[in-house]
């Protein structure tokens, strides 16, 4: 009986997902709000990690949900809605990346990477509180990680972020990126190796 209830429960979940897509296709505002609440942080995280720019990431989040609204009729249901959203985000980020690279984006410094905007605690010199060294150091590492990510080639960056930040499986990453699993694995491996080499001083500092 318990098994039956469990299976019924999972099937209800499936039906709900299908129902959500049907309602999205009908441009139901409520369904749209639900999807937005579900996936906004995923999309935002992915784009922040891919572009190292929060403003751009917000812009991309907006574009992705707009695309979801406009192009939901093109969604054939061959993959999950989440994978589809990831793919849209990745395409948008790739476009932006290309656009920025043309204009020598890599030679400019992103202002949004400053500690203050990273949401971490920035010590107030005039305040009475002691300096929270750890948080400052964590913010420092976070910033360095973003810089290092930004230096990776886009395909490696995408693969690493999808795997390590979003926690997708190799198959899912391959599906989102549109490449073979072997290719994805090698991209992830190369990306991680480069990140590791690049961040070595920070790791040693953190261990002390």
């Amino acid at each position, binding site marked *: 009986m318990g098994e039956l209830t469990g299976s019924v429960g999972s099937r209800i979940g499936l039906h709900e997902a299908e129902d959500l897509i049907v309602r999205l296709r009908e441009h139901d505002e409520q369904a749209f709000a639900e999807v937005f609440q579900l996936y906004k942080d995923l999309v935002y995280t992915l784009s922040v*990690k891919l572009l190292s720019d929060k403003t751009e990431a*917000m812009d991309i989040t907006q574009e992705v949900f707009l695309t979801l609204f*406009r192009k939901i009729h093109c969604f054939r249901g061959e993959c999950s809605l989440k994978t589809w959203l990831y793919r849209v985000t990745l395409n948008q980020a790739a476009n932006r990346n290309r656009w920025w690279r043309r204009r020598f984006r890599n030679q400019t410094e992103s202002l949004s990477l400053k500690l203050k905007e990273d949401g971490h605690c920035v010590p107030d010199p005039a305040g009475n509180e002691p300096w929270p060294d750890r948080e400052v150091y964590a913010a420092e590492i976070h910033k360095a*990680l973003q810089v290092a990510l930004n230096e990776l080639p886009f395909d490696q960056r995408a693969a690493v972020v999808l795997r390590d*930040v979003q926690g997708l499986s*190799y198959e899912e990453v391959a599906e989102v990126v549109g490449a073979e699993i072997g290719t994805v*694995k090698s991209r992830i491996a190369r990306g991680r190796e480069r*990140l*590791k080499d690049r961040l070595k001083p920070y*790791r040693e500092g953190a261990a002390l």
Partner: protein
Amino acid sequence: MTCPETRNKIHDYLDGELPANEAAFLEEHLGECTSCRENWEGLRWVKQELGVREHLPTAAQEHIWQQVHVRAGYGWPDWLYAQWDGFCTYWRDMEPLTLWSKLSAVPVTLSFFIMILMQFPLVPFQQWSYPAFEMRRMPSSVFSEPLLTEVRARHTYADIDEIMSAAWKIPYEDSVSLVAQITPTGHAEIDHVLEYPKSQDLLAAIDDSLRSTQFQSAQNFRKPLVIYSFQKIDVYSDHPDL
């Protein structure tokens, strides 16, 4: 397990996708080999640091939600979204070289269509005005005295009740032109251009002209002609002094 093997499989191990027996061998090697353990620690640290998730700020959430709501344009037909979206994507994703080559075609195409449209002007060319090229038309009032207001001749034709004449005098030229517009009763108007050297006496010249066979036969006049007035005198010139 050797170091190269470990390096190959360490990422699978890190992702927890290595089979248990291989994982055991790998762990064993990591316990023995310092450089591999160092590598493993580094990779694990990177993965751990990467795992931090971002959260969309609340203010941004509301802004994005509003923007999407507005830009999604509730009530628009689907094909319009698709068209507009396609248009934007097409231009946004274009390579710069292609973009410029396409943009440069715009003036060429435009001028082509303008040339075609010029074949069918809304206002015929004959009615177009060219203010810059128009001859300056000077009213006779610029002169203190009328050049020629009334000329009387000895000749009389009884069946002519009105003679409308205009004299166009062109200063700074060697000759003077008169256009006589002579209207017999209820009949046709005839323009006759008379041209005289300036040295000649004007009245005598007119007299001579009006006597000429060409003028008389054209009018079929039988009686003496009286030119009693020049109705209108206008002076046209493009000379800068006028």
